[in-house]
């Protein structure tokens, strides 16, 4: 029941959790500003913005490729900090920046390797060698859109689905992680 409402601690005694402790900011390069944006990103995060479907970790911030010249910046929520406003200020003029924290529900399956059930559950080849740590795919399952990434440290898979679909998606995922 938790996927739609405001709730904080949903960690369950299970390897499937809903992540409610992060802010998600979507940035998209302004036309012609890709190179200077990347320079600024390197100065800010210490890493380049991935130009292919990859997720990179930078001091607690996860940068997830989200389409051509677009990224999701995923940061741990901190009291008193407005990550979105900080990023909007930082990238002003080089990127369009919007807060999409509420747009998706992010589920995490903590599996170092995909279970056989997860492996066969999506139109993405989850084989260990085909979908490596740090890989990202934007796709759909059972008509539900999803962005899936494997954490760069290889400890888990995150699934971000549209929030208004998240009950159906959660049902599906609970089945798929078995």
């Amino acid at each position, binding site marked *: *029941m938790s996927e*739609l*409402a*405001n*709730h904080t601690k949903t960690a369950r005694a299970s390897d499937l959790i809903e992540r409610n402790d992060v802010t998600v900011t*979507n940035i*998209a*390069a*302004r*036309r*012609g500003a890709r190179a200077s944006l990347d320079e600024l990103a390197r100065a800010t995060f210490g890493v380049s913005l991935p130009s292919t479907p990859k997720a990179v970790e930078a001091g607690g911030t996860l940068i997830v490729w989200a389409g051509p010249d*677009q990224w999701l910046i995923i940061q741990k929520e901190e009291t008193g900090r407005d990550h979105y406003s900080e990023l909007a200020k930082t990238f002003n003029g080089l990127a*369009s920046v*919007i*807060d*999409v*924290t*509420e*747009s*998706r529900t992010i589920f995490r399956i903590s599996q170092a390797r995909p279970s056989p059930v997860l492996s*066969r*559950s*999506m*139109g*993405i*080849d989850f*084989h260990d060698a*085909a979908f490596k740590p740090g890989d990202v795919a934007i796709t759909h399952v*059972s*008509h*539900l859109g999803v962005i899936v990434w494997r954490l760069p440290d290889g400890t888990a898979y995150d699934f971000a689905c*549209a*929030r*208004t*679909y998240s*009950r*159906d*998606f959660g049902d599906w995922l609970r089945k798929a992680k*078995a």
Partner: protein
Amino acid sequence: MTQSAQTARLKDRGLIDRSQSLTFTFDGVPYNGYAGDTLASALLANGVRLVGRSFKYHRPRGILTSGSEEPNALVELRSGARREPNTKATITELYDGLEAKSQNRFPSLSLDLLAINGLVSPFLSAGFYYKTFMWPASFWEKIYEPMIRRAAGLGRAAQEHDPDSYDKAFAFCDVLVVGSGPAGLMAALTAARTGARVILVDESFAFGGRLLSDVRTVGGANGADWVNSVVAELKSFPGVQLMPRTTVFGAYDSGQFGAVERVADHVPVPAAGVPRQRLWRIVAKHTIIAQGALERPIVFGNNDRPGVMLASAVRTYINRFGVKPGETAVVFSNNDDGASTIADLVGAGIRVAALVDTRTVLQPATKSFARKHGIRIFEGAVVADAIGSSRVTGARIVAADGTSQNIACDLIAVSGGFNPSVQVSTHLGGRAQWQQELAAFVPGALPKGMAVSGSAKGTFGLASCLKEGAQAGEAAAVASGFQAKGAAVPAADDEPSDISAFWHVKTAKHKAFVDQQNDVTAADVALAEREGFRSVEHLKRYTTLGMATDQGKTSNVNGLAMLAQLTGKTIAATGATSARPPYTPVSLGALAGEHRGKHFKATRLTPSHDWAKERGAVFIETGMWLRAQYYPKPGENDWLTTVCREVNTVRNSVGVCDVSTLGKIEIHGTDAGKFLDRVYINMMSTLGVGKARYGMMLREDGIAMDDGTAARFADDRYFITTTTANAIKVLQHLELCRQWYWPDLDVQIFPVSDQWAQYSVAGPRARDLLAKIVDAPFDISNAAFPYMAVAELTVMGGVKARLYRLSFSGEMAYEIAVPARQGDRLMRTLMAKGEEFGIAPYGTEALGVMRIEKGHVAGPELNGTTTAADLGLGKMASTKKDFVGRVLSQRPGLTDPTRPRVVGFRPVDRSQRLRGGAHFIGKSDAAVAQNDQGYMTSVAYSPSLGHWIGLGLLANAESRMGEILRAYDPVRNGDVLVEVVPATFVDVEGARLRV
């Protein structure tokens, strides 16, 4: 009940597990079998030969084959909700408690009253559907069809809901191997040894193919043992996925294959959480089809009698299942398979009365073997007819000299040669090619990434199959980027496979069946040819040859060879029909997977859905969404009472409606204004920061696509809304405009529909209510925040929010948006703070009533046929710029002043109800199509006016104010006089919006 002994079970052979005895019933009679049996082998072990009645003539039928090509041994499996008709006994894995019934018999299998069909058979010949039941037409539904359905048919489907679950799954591999006979096993093994990811699929529950059915030596070991060693090695590779009980039923583009895995068909009830079947989509870089070849019968008289069996099936029952398919056999062949069969029959202690071969000279070794075992040899001879009715009692043999004699037997093993299984390799359009020396069709041009190996390709010798499989496996792995490891091919012999094509015994006295499942006889083929159906495609459709659930696996080639003989053409010139998926039938349950019942489609829920549910809302499905339609209060017994109360509350005080389902899109970038000017008919670049404007988009053909509002939060930051229904379509359109039409513009587009929970707060007390939740110092006064103003602010003590002063109801109204997870809290807060004003939540019904009262167009008017002008919004279109749809909206057809336009209607007799969809006809005109003037698009009972009102599209609308028309609705017997009125019914001046 006592169980009959397995009288036909052989003591010393078979791959069954005699330590696991299984009990099953057939037509209520209990029998025993063993693990490793099929239903067919277990029935034969118990001496059961008669298993069904045929489709049209209700002829007794037995078991012809040992595989999925079986045309006759179709049974109803299980009972109740799990009853499954037309299940092939030959591939049904025996399990303890299996229940099977014969089908298409009345009242019982042995006494079938409808066998009379056999006597009236002249009426059921080729094309009978087209000829016999043509006249009179009224007889079709009442007499002919029910009669045919009763008399001809197969099993009965379960009537209850299927209690089992079905699953869909994906698999990816470098090399997919379909079939696990000698070629398939070698292909899989060789590819796996290179490190490639390999999937090996076989439709049986055991791997090995013909190596389980024939007595062969591979690499010095017995064939079945060699199979076990290969399977064990395959299991040791982490990259290998073994899929028994799985049928690849279709090849699709780009290396994709459809397969059905029978996960739990071999147990009575699937275990908890286990699906009955799983539908696989397999994506393979390379595929090796090694499905082997299927033996075909020879067409002779009474060749459908129980006891006539394919020679290879006879060997399968003996060697794999340890079953005697008969006591005394006659073997009839046109190829060397006959010789192999007599050897296995003799080995199993079955008496062989005769070997009848159409070829004039047999191998000396065959002849000496026959002499040694007292087997009579007939060279250049045929079995013309089987003797016996419910089972074979003899064979009428016509020798080379034309003399005829009967020989007693209860088994006729027949081989007309082998058809390579070319179906899957030709699914993508490659035509199978006829090879005269093999007397077989072999695969034609193959799709990219596919190879065919072994007897599926027409390579019939065991040694050759092993070698070819190894080569194909290695080639596929190398092409996938792996290093060849050098394939060691185990030693084996090639068996003799000489053949001389022979199809049809013309000296037969009895009905000779070509297609046994559809009861198509040699006479039907001849009749079709005489009547001019001389192409294979016509033959197939006229006679239904090959159109049964077996897809003609044992009949197609015979049928077309017979047609070729009749027309005097070669088989190559006659051609073959195309094979299409599925290779074997696929259950609808597997295709549907989880998408049934409430899982048929995904459901979208708004952030305050749970609150609405608690409140007792009645929900309606709109697209994927579940939306609150109205909120009945205790004591309100009909929806109209509730909706009227909701409307009145909004018009008199304040109401709140969840509009989170609106499509929401952020448009950013320095060219955002310029971009929106090009996609909306009106100007958006001139919109001031902090303001919103209503806008309309057209399709490029000039027809209205969608409407909504655009709000500007900064020079380079717009936020637009779309209708709920068109959110995805509009986004796709905007992306096309951005990427393809004007790629140089600096525009970024973000769909944010799910980010915001959005509520319409409407009514004269709306501002009073919102004043209670906006955080200081935001000034919500009319002067500071007038009609069409927008702002970013915080509410409820620090919650980020956006406020839009927009109205769809005609009242002073706002839309307030908060981050989705705050939606539930905002709704509860508004309801609590609004209590003093008598606030009511309202649903989509009241929303609809109020928009009709205000004459706002919505989905029923934006219906893909209307222009902006038709909708009364023509003046919105800017003449100072181009926009999508502008040029074609100027076409004469779309600017015709007589086009139907949106206008209002009210009943002349105010007590009468209006109906959407009613057509307008002149007051004194007849209700015929020529007098059609347009139609009613939206209607509502207006609580504000106390009568029904409507919007509709009417020709020449402007000049017809006050005219009285008929609103004619023949479907619901509606014929109401209506008056044409302006489309705005409430607050015509729009004064309430701006207070």
